[in-house]
């Protein structure tokens, strides 16, 4: 084995690397929010809309959940210029992740809609709750509790998914690891540190989500085991 691990050679790059994590965070928060918003619209159409609209949504969701996010972004990045739409790498990744997220969130949120229990609504109606009060006191709390675990889980998956952006040159965490790698060639050191950063980031995220879930939504998430 003619290679020795020299971590000291890469320590000077660590601040640069960590700054990339901030860009990853931006990507995931934007894509997640966008995905939730569009997902909600899609879920509403799929639950309440007319047949044609429902079919369109079903087609959209089926397509985006049965194809890889990477290839979806490849398509946006390479194919759109053909018809004159030029996207920067960051925007292409963002749009790709948002469209992908919307499809999955549509399904997650639809499950939330379907979990509303009619008998609770009936009880509220007989106690003269107005529609707004029914939504506020019966429907929303219940839906939030049901939706929180799968949405949190998807958030973590999306955080890991941002690493794809590196392939398109975006200087988020993995992208910066690529850069440092091409400068120092200390590949194992760099990528092991990057892996560690991802582990720490997702742990912090899971912890925060667990706390938020417990106190605001009374939804429980496991951290480990």
């Amino acid at each position, binding site marked *: 084995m003619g290679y020795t691990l020299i971590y000291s050679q890469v320590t000077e790059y660590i601040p640069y690397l960590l700054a990339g994590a901030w860009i990853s965070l931006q990507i995931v928060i934007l894509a997640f929010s966008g995905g939730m918003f569009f997902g909600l619209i899609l879920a509403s159409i799929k639950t309440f809309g007319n047949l044609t609209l429902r079919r369109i949504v079903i087609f959209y969701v089926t397509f985006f959940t049965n194809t*890889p996010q990477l290839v*979806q972004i490849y398509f946006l990045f390479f194919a759109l210029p*053909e*018809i004159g739409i030029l996207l920067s790498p960051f925007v292409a990744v963002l749009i790709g992740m948002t469209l992908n997220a919307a499809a999955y969130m549509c399904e997650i949120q639809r499950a939330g809609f379907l979990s509303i229990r009619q008998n609770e609504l009936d009880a509220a109606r007989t106690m003269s709750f107005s529609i707004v009060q029914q939504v506020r006191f019966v429907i929303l709390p219940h839906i939030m509790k049901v939706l929180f675990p799968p949405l949190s889980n998807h958030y*973590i998956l999306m955080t890991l998914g941002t690493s*794809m952006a590196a392939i398109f040159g975006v200087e988020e965490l*993995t992208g910066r690891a690529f850069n440092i790698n091409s400068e120092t060639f200390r590949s194992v050191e760099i*990528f092991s540190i990057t892996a560690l950063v991802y582990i720490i980031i997702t742990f912090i995220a899971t912890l925060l989500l667990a706390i938020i879930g417990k106190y605001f939504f009374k939804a429980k998430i496991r951290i480990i085991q």
Partner: protein
Amino acid sequence: MDRLIQELPSFLSIWNIIFLLKAMGVTFLLSLIGCLVGFSFGTLLAIFRKTKSALLIPLRILIVIYTEIFRRVPFLVSLLLIFYIFQIVKITDSLFIIAIVTVCLIATAFISEIVRSGLESVNQTQWDAAKAMNFSYYETLKEVIFPQAWKVIFPPAFSFFILFIKDTALASQIGVMELTFAGKVLNNKGFSPILVFGTVLILYFILSFPLDRFGKYMERKYATN
């Protein structure tokens, strides 16, 4: 649009079609082997993780660390890390083998969680009854717990298999000749990216969608049993 129609015949040449089909095969193989190995080792990990003896604490800690690492690091970063480690250790030059190893390591981590959930879904009372009749830990698992846990394990495990097919797209980044890489090759050859990546998306869809339907059909069948 006219470019697309112009290119179509040369794009759909026999060579290209065979090339793409072979690449589809590689994608499918990566996911299949990964999941089969993942299921075998994942089950082993789940069994050992649920042991209670104090002697095995180091083993249980190792298993937890392993599972958390490979579930919290993006596929791309794991792949590159293992790629570079292989370069140092020089066991093999084959990109396919490196990809298979990565895929197996990741699948094992995820599936061991699925199996563990399945085992935990079986009521504690079944363990108590077996224990009171002097069943050993392994006898209980074999005769009582696993037959009941299987119903809870199979749907998410199969679902993971389908999801994993999409994850293998990232293996393209180290040059494994799977479907996404085939797309990149054809794109570099000069074919229209709309055509190329559109076709790749459709091929992934053809791979994933029937399996997804089959999975849902099996789920309904198991549920009514």
